[in-house]
């Protein structure tokens, strides 16, 4: 059979079609975002849209090269690629140039290259390689350690630049790991941690502790199915707390309300464990353990938050509505919401946007490119773009599931999850529901590194997919 025609018939043209559509929409929106009467030609290479056209063109060539490469190359060389990428991440810290306070770029002949973008597909390859090895069991400690290390190295190096957004992308591999057997409770725990993080910053610790203890008591009731017991425990807890306050007053102890509540809860735990019957003891202990983990996390959040960079603190605060200085840290998101909100149902029309074009929205061609979509194409256009992304990501998952090789499946999930993380965080931040951590919207945000990296990421998978029938697992 002719190898070339084999490739053409086995390629997923639906994905390629969606990819092309997204890239073209992205290009048009960059044109609209920075449109300027004096440079009205979309191929004017002195402008961002002209440059983006060059990136798209070279990206297509790159995609072609990948499709013509033997798919075994990617499995065989995944660690080499990973190693090289780690090398460049180290090199960029040493020799890179500083842009916006981050040492994340190489400058080669006037072109800036951002290694962090390329580290994503390299890590995906390495992870797929490790996790697809014969006899790999996700829930084994050594497995977790291996995978964790593979993720932590690039994430840590990127964090040193410091580019928190790009580092957080590696969190999306959690979903890949879940698909490959990570215990659901760990995913749940992560979700709870994120929720706790938000609660801790929003509300006082006392309230958060209250919520945690309330949750633990409900879990206790669920396992024991005995209301009387619950009342007794509750009365004991309240008694301990009030007695503690009395002692504090009597002895003039310097103890905060938070601490007092925790001491009372601890005493209740000990007494409860000793005096309840042994029925469901294992579950009760788990509940107690989980509640203490939550409490620990809450205390850590405050500590970690202090360690974040001021602009990141601002952005998180702003997202949670803690600070509302619309001229300071909140300016970006506020302007972004104005731009999108002013689009209305059908939008203002192509090139008719005023908020993005006149620079009210910052970084309107990169991180905040979705504002142009929202302003010029309205609710209808934004929804179409979101649905297109969703369809594309779900198609990636569908393709992943049809793979016979574990390597291809795992890599496919990595592609889907990385894309999902980017889209969700980027669009989320423009509409004010996700923190502003500055990662690009795939295919839309201006920038060669990002476009190339996503093209490589996707086309390696499409190449693997085209080869699915020759692989026997």
């Amino acid at each position, binding site marked *: 059979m002719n190898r070339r025609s084999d490739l053409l018939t086995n390629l997923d043209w639906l994905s390629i079609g969606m990819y092309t559509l997204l890239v073209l929409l992205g290009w048009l929106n960059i044109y609209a975002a920075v449109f300027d009467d004096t440079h009205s030609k979309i191929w004017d290479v002195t402008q961002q849209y002209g440059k983006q056209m060059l990136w798209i063109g070279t990206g297509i060539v790159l995609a072609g090269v990948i499709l013509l490469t033997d798919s075994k190359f990617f499995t065989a060389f995944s660690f080499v690629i990973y190693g090289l990428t780690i090398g460049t991440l180290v090199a960029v810290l040493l020799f890179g140039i500083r842009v916006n306070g981050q040492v994340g770029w190489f400058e080669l002949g006037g072109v800036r290259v951002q290694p962090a973008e390329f580290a994503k597909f390299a890590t995906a390859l390495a992870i797929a390689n490790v996790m697809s090895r014969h006899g790999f069991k996700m829930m084994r400690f050594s497995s977790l350690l291996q995978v964790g290390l593979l993720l932590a190295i690039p994430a840590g190096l990127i964090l040193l630049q410091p580019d928190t957004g790009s580092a957080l992308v590696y969190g999306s591999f959690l*979903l890949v790991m*879940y*698909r*490959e*057997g990570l215990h*659901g409770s760990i995913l749940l725990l992560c979700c709870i941690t994120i929720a706790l993080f938000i609660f801790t910053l929003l509300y006082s610790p006392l309230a958060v502790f209250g919520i945690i203890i309330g949750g633990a008591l409900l879990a206790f009731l669920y396992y024991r199915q005995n209301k009387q017991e619950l009342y007794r425990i509750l009365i004991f807890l309240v008694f301990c707390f009030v007695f503690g306050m009395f002692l504090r007053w009597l002895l003039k102890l310097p103890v905060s309300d938070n601490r007092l509540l925790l001491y009372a809860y601890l005493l209740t735990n000990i007494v409860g464990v000793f005096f309840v019957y042994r029925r469901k003891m294992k579950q009760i202990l788990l509940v107690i353990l989980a509640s203490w983990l939550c409490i620990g996390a809450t205390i850590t959040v405050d500590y970690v938050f202090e360690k974040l960079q001021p602009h990141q603190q601002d952005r998180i605060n702003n997202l949670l509505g803690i600070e509302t200085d619309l*001229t300071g840290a909140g300016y970006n998101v506020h*302007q972004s*919401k*104005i*731009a*999108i*909100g*002013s*689009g*209305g*149902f059908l939008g203002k029309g192509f090139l008719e946007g*005023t*908020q993005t*074009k*006149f*620079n*009210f929205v910052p970084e309107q061609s990169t991180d905040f490119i979705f504002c142009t979509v*929202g*302003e010029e194409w*309205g*609710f209808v256009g*934004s*929804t179409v773009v*979101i*649905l297109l*992304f*969703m369809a594309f*990501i*779900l198609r990636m*998952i569908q393709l992943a*599931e049809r793979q016979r090789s*574990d390597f291809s499946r795992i890599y496919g*999930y990595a592609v*889907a*999850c990385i894309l*999902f993380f980017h889209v*969700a965080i980027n*669009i*989320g931040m423009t*509409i004010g*529901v996700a923190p502003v951590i500055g990662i690009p919207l795939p295919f839309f945000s201006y920038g060669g590194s990002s476009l190339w990296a996503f093209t490589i990421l996707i086309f390696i998978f499409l190449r693997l997919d085209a080869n699915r029938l020759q692989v026997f697992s």
Partner: protein
Amino acid sequence: MNKFTHRRAVISGIMICIFAVYIIRLFYLQVMDDSYKMSAINNSQRVEVQYPARGLIFDRNNTLLVYNQAAYDLMIIPRQMQAFDTTELTSILGITKESLVKSLERCKRYSRYKASSLVSQITDNKYAMLQEKLYKYPGFFIQTRTLRKYNISHSADVFGYIGEVSSAQIERDSSYAPGDYIGVNGLEKSYEQVLKGTKGKKILLVDNYNRTKGSLKDGAYDEPAVVGGNLTTTLDIRLQEYAYHLMQNKKGGVIAIEPATGEILLKVSSPGFDPQWLVGLERGTNYAKLQQNPNLPLFDRTVMATYPPGSIFKTIMGLIGLQEGVITPASKFECYGGASFNGRFMSCHNHPSPLDLRGAIQHSCNPYFVNVFRRILENSRYKGVRDAYDPWRDQVMSFGLGQQICPDFLNELPGSIPTREHYDREFKTQNWYYTYVMSLAIGQGALLMTPLQMANIVSCIANRGYYITPHIVRPMDQEHAARIKKHPVNIKSSYFECIIDGMENAVKAGTGRNAASDSVVICGKTGTIQNPHGEDHSAFFAFAPRENPQIAILVYVENGEWGSSYAAPIAGLLIEQYLTGTVPERKNALEKRMLEANLID
């Protein structure tokens, strides 16, 4: 297949859920909530106000008096400001860094998003320099507007001036915005609605640094400014200027009215000031100086100062006496340097005795008019003095006294003609005698009137029995024309001739000789007003020529001692100047003396 295949549904579910939340959120942002659309308009459109030129002001011969010049305000939008070179800006503007910082604070307090004026009324050449450098100052822009410019250097009391509107005024009238100018005084205030015109607007598209990117839909929503209406005043500016010079270094007021029309030919409050002082950057300091001046240049003595009229009031006393039938022109009363009334002495000066009414006006005999007043108040038609007082007061008021008579000056005071209740309170009884109030007969006591009202009296006499509402602006429409009416007084017109005879004689050979002219017959009456605080005030009113009078004038000079010493000669000069266009050589020395007289220092 492996055993975790079902987890595909969980992962896809999470993704679909999050995208669904985003779409709902977008629906809320873009379709449900309109506030973002408003913010977008505020962001990207700058409504540039087109300020109309204020109406021009002319004199009766269409000489341009007040017009406009371009002025530039440096505006800022604090939110768009960035760190800038304060040294350069202060050196261009010629202000100190402290005052710049203070202004910036003021602007920020007003609004971080809206434009406010940082430095107002910048001159042409500073503007030119600034315009070149402005690109370096994001958030700054220049607003052009018009300021007043004057062809005259006096008579600020007539024109008034313009100043920034107060917040209370903005609340009353929404067509004003902070930083707008409004007439504060004089004609600028009373004719504000005519002069101000209508503001226009230009809607510009701007970027985040407020740089203009063109106009919205090529100006489809722009509205041009409508220029304010012009005023033609009734002033004769040459006469006005002459009067201003004659009155320099004297306190007081001069008013001249054309009797047949009620048009005010001249209106001088002295000391006055140059209206240009209250325009431009130095306005604040100049205003403070004017306010601290002990001679009160900001006080309009022609319509706000109320003085006792003194002897010029005797003309009205004579007319009322005739009308009431208590005297005839031939009635005579004796006076030998004064006369005694129920033990109260009314002094007078040397003149022939006894005198008839004509002679009493000519020589300004005090006891004569006390006698007239006595006959009016003790008229048997009335039950007593108190009852006779009211009809007398009504007669007096019909001359336009005790009320505002000119619609053109909103600061005009009514003066006062005391009521009988006033005397009831003062004398603590209702049984009072004519002797209690006899100083009214010679225009002293509680009688107070403005120079405008005194000029109006003589205009009434010139018209033989009526006055036309005095006004200084020719009506521009029906509404304004309707304000000007004929007001007859309650005196038969034939009674006036004998009073006018007396006034003619007073100028020819009486107290008003200093006003006499060889070419025209001037009829006038002097007044010397006792002033407990210093030198007596000097007053003189007159009209000319006797037949078909063209001008009625009042001159009131504070601390001018005798009516004949300053007021009469100044009035004489002005009448001759107005009627003949020149001052005869014979009067050159007198003119020089008047010009040089200094009664202030």
